[in-house]
């Protein structure tokens, strides 16, 4: 109207541009500036967090080494029926010979051996041995027989079936392995009973993490309550005690637990001394689940207490007084008035402790013995010892998915906006 126009159209700014456009321009500058401010963090997160996770996702399915090292063999195997019960024909062996010659020159055959050995035991030495001898093979002779002479596995259709099954650039093999299954001749099948470990470990990890979280909550709640209600000076003192574990190194703390908990340790000695326990009936409190639970509860306790404390501190004492003045007993006042308001702190603390414990591996490794180790110990083993990074990545991805699912469930049941760190 200010422009005196009669036609209903876009409102114009003073310089005649549409107002909407000028506004967008003004805002764009602001957004750009905001983006530049967060750019360092964004880049940091992309490089140190998003990229590794993407890399892990990729590794868990990546299988390029087989088609890259044996391109001709893979192509030749197309025509071979792995259900035939017969090793493939001469054409395939010829392709294998040429592939292996190139691979030996590039020193890639042993690497391929390591890869396929995850799927079939013995392939590592098969390829190492064959690599040494392939140069001496006669191109025109009976190649199948020559290969079989190097190692009888080449005459075994199972070897070829394995190569064929894992010949594509991407594989589900690692994920299947991570859930105690494998790609067999007839498709996906469960591993034999004596090799099923990962699902069991996932379950144990989740169960122990829940136990640790609950233990932290049971021990941490009264402490946080005390911290939040005591006068400042006393509560500061107590807070230092709570934070003390943070100031000692993890290994020192774990060693301390060993000294305390082992069978000839302080606690057992004391129990025997006061006669609660017979000398030959000393309690096993370390190198088992008990050890893991005790040590991890101790280590993760501050992560429960701190969010609880910061939430409880914001609950005015007048609520409890109001409840009591309205006729509630101490317990009712606590349970119906105080406790519901501390739930956001419980949520934050529990999520923190649970997620930290689900991925913990040093402490379970040191004090967990065999019954107190977590899935992360296997992941660490495959990363640093067996070098089966694909399997480690698959296990990691599953762990990540489990955490996300639990997070989603938490959001559905309790609501993620019901989590407060203070």
């Amino acid at each position: 109207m200010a422009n005196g126009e009669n036609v209903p159209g876009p409102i114009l700014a003073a310089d005649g541009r549409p107002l909407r456009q000028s506004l967008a321009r003004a805002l764009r500058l602001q957004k750009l500036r905001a983006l530049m401010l967060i750019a360092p963090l964004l880049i940091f997160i992309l490089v140190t967090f998003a990229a590794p996770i993407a890399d892990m996702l990729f590794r868990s399915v990546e299988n390029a080494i087989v088609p890259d090292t044996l391109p001709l063999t893979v192509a030749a195997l197309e025509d071979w029926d792995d259900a035939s019960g017969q090793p493939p024909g001469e054409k395939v062996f010829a392709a294998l010979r040429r592939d292996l010659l190139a691979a030996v020159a590039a020193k890639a055959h042993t690497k391929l051996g390591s890869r396929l050995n995850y799927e079939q035991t013995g392939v590592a030495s098969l390829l190492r041995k064959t690599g040494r001898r392939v140069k001496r093979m006669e191109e025109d002779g009976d190649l199948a027989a020559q290969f079989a002479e190097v190692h009888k596995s080449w005459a075994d259709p199972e070897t070829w079936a394995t190569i064929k099954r894992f010949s594509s650039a991407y594989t589900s093999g690692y994920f299947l392995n991570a859930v105690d299954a494998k790609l067999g001749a007839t498709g996906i099948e469960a591993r034999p009973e004596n090799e099923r470990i990962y699902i069991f470990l996932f379950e144990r990890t989740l169960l122990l993490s829940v136990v640790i979280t609950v233990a932290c909550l049971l021990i941490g709640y009264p402490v946080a309550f005390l911290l939040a209600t005591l006068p400042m000076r006393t509560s500061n003192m107590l807070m230092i005690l709570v934070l003390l574990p943070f100031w000692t190194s993890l290994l020192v703390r774990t060693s301390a637990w060993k000294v305390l908990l082992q069978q000839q340790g302080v606690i057992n000695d004391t129990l025997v001394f006061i006669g609660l326990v017979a000398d030959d009936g000393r309690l096993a409190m370390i190198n088992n689940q008990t050890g893991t639970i005790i040590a991890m509860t101790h280590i993760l306790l501050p992560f429960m207490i701190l969010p609880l404390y910061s939430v409880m501190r914001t609950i005015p004492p007048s609520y409890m007084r109001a409840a009591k003045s309205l006729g509630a007993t101490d317990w009712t006042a606590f349970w119906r008035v105080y406790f519901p308001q501390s739930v956001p702190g419980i949520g934050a603390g529990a999520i923190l402790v649970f997620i930290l414990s689900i991925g913990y591996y040093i402490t379970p490794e040191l004090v967990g013995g065999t019954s107190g180790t977590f899935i992360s110990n296997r992941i660490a083993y495959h990363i640093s010892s067996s070098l089966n990074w694909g399997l480690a990545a698959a296990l990691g991805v599953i762990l990540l998915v489990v955490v996300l699912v639990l997070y989603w469930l938490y959001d559905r049941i309790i609501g993620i906006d019901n989590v407060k760190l203070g």
Partner: protein
Amino acid sequence: MRLRTFLAAGAVASMAMAGAAQAEDMTIVSWGGAYSASQMNAYHKPYMEMNPGVNIINDESAAEAVAKLRAMAEAGNTTWDVVDVVASDAIRLCDEGLAMEVDVDSVLAAAPDGTPASKDFGDFLVTPCFIPQIVYSTTFGYRTDMVGDTPPKDVCAVFDLENYPGKRSLEKRPINNMEWALMCDGVAMEDIYDQLATEEGQARAFAKLDTIKDQVVWWSAGADTPQLLADGEVVIGSTYNGRLFKLIEEDKQPVAMLWDGQVFDLDGWIVPANLSDERKKRALHYLNFATDTQRLADQAKYISYGPARASSAPLVGKHATLGIDMAPHMPNEPKNMSNTLLYNYEFWADYRDDIDAKFQTWLAK
């Protein structure tokens, strides 16, 4: 404009300086503790004295060497020059193309009598990437005060709960344990690996291990068993012979060595693949010195691991501080070798993943 020039000049200068400084440093990765100390005394110090231009940096991350070397190779920035690894890891690194193949005779010094290095090391050259350094063994130590009047004489005491009750410590992996189990289940020495290659043989080994499973403390760090023995937490436990030597001779604990059934393993050097020519040359120059006959014999003054060269054995003398004769404490001393096993690298390279999965499953159940 001037500022930018200045900054660029500064950057170039600092890069040049960093380059110069790096040219002097050589990073050698090893296991730390007494072992690294013995290498420092026997190899590094004399080498640096003879080559003042080189500064050896001792990195103690050998336990994660394989994974770290792979990560470095993938990142295209290998910062290590020489790495001390066990033979099985050397094979793995060689298979993965992460370690350089070394022509032993052209790189390493011959024995004083002219025997070429390849013959002097002999069977210990288990892979083309590996330069052996020491022979060590994994064997058992027991508490002398906890076995009564009949101290154990052979490795099967580990499985004898009746005569030797109490906890025992074993390494948390199938290697060695499976062999001992079969050995004590009556399998002849030469049949052990044939048996282990079969499902039945593996089941047999697990069944034997089952008999002591609830009495076993499983260790994963070499320091665990000595500590458990010292604390009286276990009666008998496996660990590296050098650790037991220290526990018995240096710490004077009531522990004795059980050489029976010891499993030999090798530890030695690899050079990471894809080093620059200059760094490669430096690394090999160092290895030529560090693995000659005298140097290997010298190391035995500080730690009870046997030199990997045949020609070094006669030169082994007394312990540098304790003054005791070292030869009787060497795993490859003939007296200690009545019943021994050599780590079967070929077998475990193939079966490690398979049997480890079963072992872990067995442990967890």
